[in-house]
């Protein structure tokens, strides 16, 4: 069941992005950026947490979740440190994704050679 829910939600987000890509002249960069903003916006009312509860990995994987995690981390820290918490907690939850992406990108670039 979890698999199906995960499949459906992740597929749905991708299909929406694909429709935007087909009908506008936006590049993938534009689309991913706007999806991150949408993700952060959905966290404004804790809506994205509900989505993760229902769809598990399906809601964690799309780039919208990135905006949500940034926002979530920031909001968590504001409880302790006030407004400075926004900057202090920003990367708390996304640190894993970003650091691993940088690390693996670097090592892959060192080991492999680009081929086309």
């Amino acid at each position, binding site marked *: 069941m979890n698999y199906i829910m995960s499949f459906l939600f992740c597929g749905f987000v991708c299909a929406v992005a694909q429709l935007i890509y087909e009908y506008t002249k936006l590049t*993938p960069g534009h689309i991913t950026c706007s999806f991150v903003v949408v993700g952060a916006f959905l966290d404004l009312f804790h809506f994205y947490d509900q989505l993760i509860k229902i769809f598990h990995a399906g809601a964690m994987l799309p780039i919208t979740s990135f905006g949500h995690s940034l926002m979530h981390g920031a909001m968590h820290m504001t409880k302790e440190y006030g407004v400075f918490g926004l900057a202090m907690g920003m990367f708390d939850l996304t640190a894993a994704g970003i650091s691993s992406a940088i690390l693996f990108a670097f090592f892959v670039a060192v080991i492999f050679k*680009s081929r*086309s």
Partner: protein
Amino acid sequence: MSSHFLSNSFVFDHVYVESVGTTAGLLEYQGPLGSYFDKYYLDHYHGNDSYELAEIEMLSDAIFCCLNKAKIKKEDVDIYFGGDLNNQLTACYYHAFYLKKPFIGLYSACATMALAIGQASLMIENHNIERAIACTVSHNATAERQFRYPLEYGIQRKNTMTFTATGGCAVSLTPHRSPIKIASMTLGRVVDMNQYDANDMGRAMAPAAYDTYKQHMKDLNIDGRYYDLILTGDLSNYGKSIMERLLKDSQQKYKVYDDCGALLYSQDQNVYQGGSGPVCSALVSFGYIYQEMLKGKYQKVLILATGALLSPVMTNQKLSIPCVCHAFALEVTQ
């Protein structure tokens, strides 16, 4: 002897093609015209450390083939004309050191070969030069890196896109009689029809091709039926259909019209709309058409090499794409 100048066009009496050297990438070799090329490479690096070095090697091989076929040494060439797609024409100038002769770098994107042929022809016709080489090179990977995205970036290509051809081409021109001559050339004007889509070059370039076509016919006071074949450079399948419509709407008469980008690859090769790049028109006109002309299939061929003079910076600044088209005519010597 001197060339006749008519508005935008020049007519030549004593410019002959001495020999031709072509090198092609694997995809071009596997295409329908593969057997016409002198040399091909199995991958994008062919033993070099980077794509840029591979591109330089393709140019060097093309010039070497050209010199070998004419049985001359590189000291016998008086002047070189050439260009490629890279910033600062790196592929050409980094090779020019080994040529030890004047090298004039030219840039008009995918119309570079026609411009180089034109300049070389003018030199030969007007300045007592014994031999000039016009050359061009392009590499899919270097062009992709410079104009679009990193090579491994997983992006879906729009279906109007063209595919930069990989290969090199060198043509040696002399004032001494040979079977094929350069009869005339027309320098194009820059045309900008306010097209903004950098993924849709055929659509941006078709008006430039049409403009140069009309100018050429007007200057030489002929119509399209004078030529056995009219070829556009790299409009690709979509641009070709636009060009056909433009010709039809203005009631231009011609025998056969085709496009180099559409000829270079077969439909099942997954190259979107067809080939592009400076070497695309060069490979087709001097690989395929030149050899067919030697065999007698065509007598007179007009090549309209089109170029989109875009830069990624200006595209990001939301400016439209200026395009140019230079034409030259190949004729069998009577």
